[in-house]
């Protein structure tokens, strides 16, 4: 079975074990999650456009409605869109093609992963149907999540399903990368995207079980009467926060690393350049992030009553993250140096990523400093920071990936005019949305507030501007996603290698790739790399 088979049969898609189709199923599910969570974001922004009830019914039930939007936005964007969009869709579709393999190591486990993911999406969507809608935010902190009338079980089961899906996918892809590379392909010849997934999936494999354990204990506390997080009976509130962030900070790198990997691929291809200082970016950058990622979680708990020595110790480790990230950034920027850059939709997103990476990364530095964070934490400064790096940089990487590999996946070209218009609206819109939030964040605007009447009246103006930005983004997103759908159906036919890339998925497969991926077994020699363009 392959994406190239003639005619559409639903059963073939549901029971597929082809990594390309599974990748596409991941893409459809994650874009669906993105769309619903995006609508939640719009509701959140419209509500905040003015102090007092804007679209919620009244001051007393307003919080209940708004908190459900916030919960779904956060949980669905991270668990349903970013992680499955990058390590589900992109990794599934591209890894076997990039390493010259026929499929993943365990195709049926791969099918199970995508089923679990879809089940997770369905359970998450139940939020809108059940009467006791979950309102525990994506963090689910007890005691609130234990005592709330909202349905914490839906949150826990969403995490379980997505988590098992991630763990299975991680094992599957790690084995695939280690054992199924084309004969002759050494570790230093791998695509940057392969390396970024390899490192991200190691993090995924180590840390997801911790999150699964934390939310399971939460489930027991809520429904079985245990007291893991109940201090009145010998439990500890902070235990959950530590377990949660012990996973959830590394989860940031599960998103960040593949996002960087995608931009590396686009830069190298569009600039027709080798990766600048490949080994420094891979070993000094990605591998070091794996090593440090588990020792920085306390920066989410700088004002949570943690011991002072931990707050200071992890300030140092958190700041040191700038070393591997800095090496990767230099390598990414350096890949453009003396290149021959072609501009098209993926490269538009690539160019924007330079700026987004800097804004998102640098605004993380004050938040890494314990004392700075004690004021800036939990304000809209923090909110704008992680939206720049996670919300926009990573989301743009998914968009760039779809746009870049669209000809490969569908055999069609995108409509460039619509794609570029969509890009500009997205890019301008996110800046209009999040810069005002940086400013009022420094002045003390807290996160997760739907009303802010107690604050100076000029906050309302900033919130209005931010809401205007969100509406611009919404139009941009509609243009972008409708471009994919329309072009997939009736776009211009794509040539086999429209970008002139040197990577295996472009040079050695049909467009779109047929069953078994490669018409003939692939071997590479010691001089081959995906980035050695003939001078």
């Amino acid at each position, binding site marked *: 079975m392959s994406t190239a088979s003639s005619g559409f049969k639903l059963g073939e898609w549901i029971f597929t074990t082809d990594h390309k189709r599974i990748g596409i199923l991941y893409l459809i599910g994650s874009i669906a999650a993105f769309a619903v969570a995006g609508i939640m974001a719009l509701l959140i922004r419209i509500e905040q456009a003015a102090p007092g009830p804007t679209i919620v019914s009244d001051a007393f039930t307003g*919080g209940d409605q708004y*908190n459900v939007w916030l919960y779904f936005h956060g949980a669905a964007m991270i668990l349903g869109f970013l992680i499955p969009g990058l390590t589900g869709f992109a990794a599934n579709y591209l890894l076997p093609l990039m390493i010259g393999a026929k499929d993943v190591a365990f195709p049926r486990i791969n099918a199970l992963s995508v089923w679990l993911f879809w089940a997770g999406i369905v359970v998450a969507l139940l939020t809108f149907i059940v009467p006791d809608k979950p309102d525990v935010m994506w*963090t689910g902190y007890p005691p*609130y999540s234990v*005592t*709330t009338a909202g349905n914490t079980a839906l949150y826990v089961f969403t995490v379980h399903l997505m988590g098992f899906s991630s763990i299975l996918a991680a094992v599957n892809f790690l084995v695939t990368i280690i054992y199924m590379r084309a004969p002759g392909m050494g570790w230093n010849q791998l695509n940057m995207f392969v390396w970024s997934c390899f490192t991200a999936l190691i993090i995924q494999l180590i840390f997801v079980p911790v999150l699964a354990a934390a939310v399971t204990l939460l489930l027991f506390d809520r429904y079985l009467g245990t007291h893991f997080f109940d*201090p*009145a009976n010998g*439990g500890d*509130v*902070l235990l959950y926060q530590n377990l949660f962030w012990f996973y959830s900070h590394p989860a940031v790198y599960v998103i960040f690393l593949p996002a960087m990997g995608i931009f590396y691929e686009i830069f190298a291809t569009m600039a*027709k*350049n*080798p990766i*600048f*200082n490949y*080994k*420094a970016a891979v070993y*000094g950058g990605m591998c070091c992030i794996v090593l440090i990622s588990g020792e920085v979680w306390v920066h989410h708990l700088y*004002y*949570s*009553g943690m011991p*002072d020595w931990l707050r*200071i110790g992890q*300030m*140092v480790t958190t*700041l*040191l993250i700038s*070393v591997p990230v*800095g090496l990767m950034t*230099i390598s990414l*920027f350096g890949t453009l*140096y*003396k*290149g*021959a*850059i072609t501009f098209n939709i993926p490269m538009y997103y690539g160019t924007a990523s*330079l*700026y987004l990476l*800097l*804004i998102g990364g*640098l*605004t993380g*530095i004050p938040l890494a*400093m*314990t*004392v*700075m964070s*004690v*004021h800036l*934490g*939990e*304000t809209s400064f923090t909110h704008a920071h992680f939206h720049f790096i996670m919300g926009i940089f990573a989301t743009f990487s998914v968009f760039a990936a779809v746009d870049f590999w669209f000809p490969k996946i569908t055999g069609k070209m995108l409509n460039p005019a619509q794609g570029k218009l969509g890009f500009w609206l997205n890019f301008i819109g996110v800046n209009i949305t999040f810069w005002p939030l940086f400013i009022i964040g420094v002045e003390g605007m*807290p996160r*997760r*507030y*739907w009303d*802010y009447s*107690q604050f100076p009246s000029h906050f309302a103006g900033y919130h209005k501007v931010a809401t205007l930005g969100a509406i611009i983004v919404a139009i941009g997103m509609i243009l972008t996603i409708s471009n994919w759908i329309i072009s997939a159906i009736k776009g211009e036919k794509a040539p086999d290698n429209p970008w002139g890339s040197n990577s295996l998925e472009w040079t050695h497969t049909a467009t779109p790739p047929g069953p078994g991926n490669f018409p003939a077994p692939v071997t590479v020699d010691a001089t081959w790399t995906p980035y050695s*363009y003939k001078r």
Partner: protein
Amino acid sequence: MKRAVSALVLTGLGVVAGLAEAKEKVAIPDPAASWNQLWHHVLLDLFIIGIIFLAAGLYWVWKYRATRPNQIGEGPQLTKLGAIGFAVVPAFLFMADDFFLAAKGWTVWNEYRNVPRNAMEVKVTGSMWSWNFEYDNGVSTTFMVDSKEGEGLVVPVGKPVVLRMTSTDVVHSFFLPDYRVKEDLMPGRVTYLWFNPIKEGETLATCAEYCGNRHAFMWTKVKVVSQADFDTWLAKQKQGA
């Protein structure tokens, strides 16, 4: 010789300790002011790094655009030494900046955590959704979040205030935006923060940890009044109770 050295060291330490003692007597630090100063240093630091990278990136994007079809990039193939240099030198530069920021941050952090000895203690209890403040003499006032009834936190000007905080139900956070400080409140633990109210006036404290339906309304007044007014107020509260 050994003895002389140790005597010298001890004297030195004594002098330093004495100076520190003297310094504490004269001036109580103002963490909010230190925070503002550090914030400007950090912003400058970020601005410099950001401008260098952004200028290089945008300039290269513009300068190295392809001028003819099928053009191939001429990016450098680094020698072994070049590769190591481009990894080690930036790594040390980044580390230097990290340690510089960490040291600066730690210095101000020490101000945040070392409560001045003459600080007035107030017990703060957060609940869904009210703030309770309990003073040394047993006076306890509650600020109701829904009705906005209650005195809020009243403190005398010029005297550092340390808040010993806990919660009766879920996690809350006592956030004083004007004093650049917050700390969470939770059941089963007592946390603290201190601030230095250097001028009279009314400001607000607001909850910064998600606590359900009324989270956005969970704020309270913080009134800084003269010592005389504070004494009168406290006496009146005591009588009322």
